[in-house]
């Protein structure tokens, strides 16, 4: 059904209907082979990744008691206004700011260093 490479090399300048149809079928076969091969490989890779990835986290537990929440920080009303304005700008619809908590991480300093390095490499 499909043309052999030797025949393909001799595809005439003006192929007849039979040659043209065979040429097209071969072309479609090549395209499907390439993309089909990628599909199979990516399915295998995807299955491996799904198996290796950690199990999905359990549904969120009920709110923790007040003692475990981040320590309360005196909130600057100007900061609260800025956050509310930003939320309004992004959401652009009815909204309510329920809580504002500081992000507490253990590697703030390394994050700052990384940010500094990236800024120094950015094209200005």
């Amino acid at each position, binding site marked *: 059904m499909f043309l052999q490479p030797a025949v*393909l*090399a001799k*595809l*005439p*300048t*003006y*192929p007849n209907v039979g040659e*043209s*149809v065979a*040429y*097209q*079928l*071969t*072309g*479609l076969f*090549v*395209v*499907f*082979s*390439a*993309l*089909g*091969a*990628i*599909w199979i*490989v*990516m*399915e295998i*890779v*995807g299955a491996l*990744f*799904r198996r290796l*990835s950690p199990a999905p986290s359990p549904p969120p537990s009920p709110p923790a008691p007040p003692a475990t929440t981040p320590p309360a920080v005196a909130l600057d009303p100007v900061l609260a206004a800025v956050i509310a304005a930003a939320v309004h700008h992004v959401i652009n619809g009815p909204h309510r700011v329920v809580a504002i908590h500081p992000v507490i991480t253990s590697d703030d300093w390394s994050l700052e260093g990384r940010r500094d390095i*990236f800024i120094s*490499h*950015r*094209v200005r």
Partner: protein
Amino acid sequence: MFSGLIDFFQTTGFALITWKMMIMWGVVGVLLWLAVAKGFEPLLLVPIAFGALIANLPTRGVITTELQANGTYESATFLVSADPVATSDPAASPGNHYKVTRIEGGLFDFISQGIKLELFPPLIFLGVGALTDFGPLIALPRTLLLGAAAQLGLFMTFFGANLLGFTAKQSASIAIIGGADGPTAIFLANKLAPELLGAVAVAAYSYMSLVPLIQPPIMRLLTTDKERRIRMRSLRKVSKLEKLLFSVIVMMICILLVPDASALISMLMLGNFLRECAVTERLVKSAQNEIINILTIFLGTSVGITMAADSFLAPATLKIIALGVIAFGFATAGGVLAAKLMNKLAPGTPINPLIGSAGVSAVPMAARVSHTEGQKYDKNNYLLMPAMGPNVAGVIGTAVAAGYFLSTLGR
């Protein structure tokens, strides 16, 4: 004094204007109207139209065009003057060593070498890769088949072009319009049928800009109301390592299968790897902005400047324009029908057939068309991300098809 004025007039460009040039000014006007007033692919149509205008003015020092013995026009040639150099090597045959003393040519004789030497399309693919998120395709890899099925348009058009009297090489160059991928169309046409480059590029980019008009009627014709309302599962999150592996795997498979597509595929995947590895921020920014923008200007104007009236206003151009829309139609139908077939074979995980049409490339417009069409029937159906899968698969599929044409016809 009067004869002096006449002599002067003959040195001006007015004396060289022809009626064919004036027709081309109209064509340029239409392209500029589509780009500026309608917003259809302005980034490409504006440089192409401007290049076409330059080509149809009696310019000097811009581009050299010569009529070949076979009746076709060759542009972007330049003159190299060289003197023989005496060599002290007794083994060297005389006359083999020259010193270039002068190179004469117009601005676009040199800029257009980027197309002639096949530099611009792969470098634009570098930028395309840097701009493309393959995540939706990796999350739903079977949509690769939709990108493959949409290549049906290419091969059907090859057949049609053959019937209309084009040679096999010309037919392949016209057929690639159905891939809806401008750089690939230019890459292939320049290699197989450079005499058709201008018409092929204009048809490809014009139809890409008309995707929102061409595709929806075909999509509606081939799908039922129920099929258009199919909701697809939300896509899983794809890890960075998976994306990096995808770039490498796709490049290796495609190059091993069709080495002639190496330049396009390798640059596409290099751009994507730079994007996903997240440690080459400056390079990604350059690929996404400066490189692709500069090359788009050069590519567009270089293509437009091949649209000189004498070569463009030919019956072949009209045939190419007609075949282009057929190519797009069959490509759209191929993708939609393949999605329907996949639903028959795997009814448990249905695919909305509207995303099949996105397999024609034209990233991301074709995916947006799928999404918009889907929302007409179900306002809460979000098909954009699932449609990006076949959309980017179409880019890979078209590059592979171009590689097939090159490997079989380009020798």
